């Protein structure tokens, strides 16, 4: 059993409040990703879970036990750092053994644990090297090995992949995923990279200015972002946010947007509850459409909107098509060679995936 409950936790340095009443709760085996830009408080929160930073208010419970006043070593956690934090004067083996030595584990047991971890991470041949003789990816493995031998209730990762190059980052990501699958330990993982969050997490907490914006499964966060901020932060290219007006005609709810020089276009059948629709009828809203929810109007299907294509960016599997709508720049992900710059394009929208936000609060309305 290794649950983590973060209960109305606050952190402030003097008058400067870094975390404002954060509450997160995850179950055993969960992979929680704290996602947000730098300065959002995610690393502070992680350090507080680890016991490296003090808690100003609220409670943190690991496996049901309040750990607020426990020192890091008594919290039964392990942590992997962005800079790996390998002890530079010790060999890989000594690095991994260091914590066990302090806990007074006998040499044979230590040796066994090191072996197991080394096999798991395929680094048995590196054990007698110094950190300075290792590549970035190898150091990352050692750092993870050091965490694994601890057999903690909770793994903490602080942006572990951000010092690696792009290729290695993808490989290590898979490695971490595999590790999680094999060990089944609860993990808290801090990153600013939304792809890592999507690929790794079972739960994502998107943070901004010390406040959790949304805490949910990654797919939910992606499909139903809680607000414009989350919508824009998750996904690449990010969700298009187009100003528009909500129209209600009977049971059909539509979002009306402007298209330059061509008048208005109507996106009909937006999934909004009748009460909300009544409340927002005729009001200004923000319409959120993911790029992949556009498609080319083919055959006799009537296009939702016809636009003048501004720029075309082929990525290989898809082509990104950029145009303007209600003054906002909009990107659509289309199959290759279906549109070209300066020409017009007739597009359909998967209205079931369209998300509507309040124009003022920028929160999602259902």
């Amino acid at each position: 059993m290794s649950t983590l409950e973060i209960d109305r936790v606050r952190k402030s340095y003097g008058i400067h409040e870094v975390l404002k009443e954060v509450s997160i709760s995850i179950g055993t085996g969960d992979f929680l990703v704290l996602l947000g830009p730098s300065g959002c408080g995610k690393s502070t929160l992680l350090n507080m879970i680890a016991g490296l930073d003090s808690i100003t208010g609220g409670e943190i419970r690991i496996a049901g036990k309040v750990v607020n006043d426990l020192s890091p070593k008594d919290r039964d956690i392990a942590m992997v750092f962005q800079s790996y934090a390998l002890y530079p004067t010790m060999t890989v083996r000594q690095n991994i053994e260091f914590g066990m030595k302090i806990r007074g584990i006998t040499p044979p047991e230590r040796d066994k644990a090191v072996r197991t971890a080394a096999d798991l991470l395929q680094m048995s041949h590196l054990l007698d090297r110094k950190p300075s003789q290792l590549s970035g990816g190898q150091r990352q493995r050692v750092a993870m090995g050091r965490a694994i031998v601890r057999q903690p209730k909770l793994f903490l990762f602080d942006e572990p992949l951000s010092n690696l190059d792009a290729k290695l980052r993808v490989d290590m990501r898979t490695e971490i995923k595999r590790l999680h699958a094999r060990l089944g330990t609860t993990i808290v993982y801090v990153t600013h990279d939304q792809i890592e969050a999507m690929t790794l997490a079972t739960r994502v907490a998107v943070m901004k200015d010390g406040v959790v914006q949304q805490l949910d499964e990654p797919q939910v966060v992606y499909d139903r972002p809680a607000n414009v901020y989350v919508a824009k932060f998750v996904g690449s290219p990010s969700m298009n946010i187009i100003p528009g007006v909500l129209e209600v005609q009977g049971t059909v709810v539509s979002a009306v947007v402007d298209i330059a020089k061509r008048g208005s276009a109507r996106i009909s059948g937006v999934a909004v509850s009748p009460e909300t629709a009544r409340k927002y009828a005729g009001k200004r809203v923000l319409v959120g459409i993911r790029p992949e929810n556009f498609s080319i109007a083919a055959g006799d299907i009537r296009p939702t909107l016809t636009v003048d294509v501004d720029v075309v960016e082929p990525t290989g599997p898809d082509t990104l098509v950029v145009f303007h709508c209600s003054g906002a720049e909009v990107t659509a992900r289309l199959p290759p060679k279906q549109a070209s710059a300066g020409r017009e394009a007739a597009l359909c929208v998967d209205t079931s995936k369209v998300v509507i936000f309040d124009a003022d609060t920028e929160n999602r309305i259902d």
Partner: protein
Amino acid sequence: MNTEANSARRSHLLGRLFIYGSLLALAAFYLMPLWVMIVTSLKSLDEIYAGSFVGLPKAITFEAWEKAWGQACIGTACDGLRPYFINSLLMVIPAVILSTGIGAINGYILTKWRFPGSNFFFGMLLFGCFLPFQAVILPMAQLLGSLRLSGTIPGLVLVHTVYGISFTTLFFRNYFITIPDELTRAAQIDGAGFFRIFFSVMLPAALPIIVVSCIWQFTQIWNDFLFGVSFTAGQSSPITVALNNIVNVTMGRKQYNVDMAAAMIAAIPTLVVYIVAGRYFVRGLTAGAVKG
């Protein structure tokens, strides 16, 4: 095309000539005093008084060295520099170890265990680096007297340690600040405590700056004259005081060759330290003694 290549080669050659020429000329300037000292120490006194100061000796003799080491008189004690050399060693070794050790742990605290006011404390400490020591001799003498340490080598060790802390703390603090805090955090999570982290993680990683600190302290303490002459007497004097007594004969015929040999003897330990460890000194300076 060919002429261009030629002129390029010529200008390159001229450039190298300029570089080596300047470096060698400067080297000659820097070696001059050493040359004078060595040459003089190998001459006989008669040759020197006959007017040969800078030139090569006509006949090399080590008489002056023997005399300086074992026979030269300071007051009525004619044991040469030997006992004072030992005094200096007895003073410099504990003082270097103590001041470097304290500086290391101070630097560790000031970077990895900061607390409110720790920066202010560091500032206070740093100002101590720049204290003109003449200003503190008398109060220090009173303090040593009340500690019953006046006139003793332990007393000197204490003084050098106190005034060495400022510099060594500066060295270590600036070095440790370049070591990521994550390292101490990782060790904390591994269960290491305050001292364990210091001895197992920080200290082994601080080797370059330990060398810098030791060299600096060694030369400062070995070469110190002011504290030595103020706080010791007679047989417990360090070598610089003994050297001064040999060299600064107020009334009498100067034995320049013995003076120079004595000066060389007094300089040998620091010279050796610099020649052996000078490389590390420059490297250590890069590594954080001076913030780049």
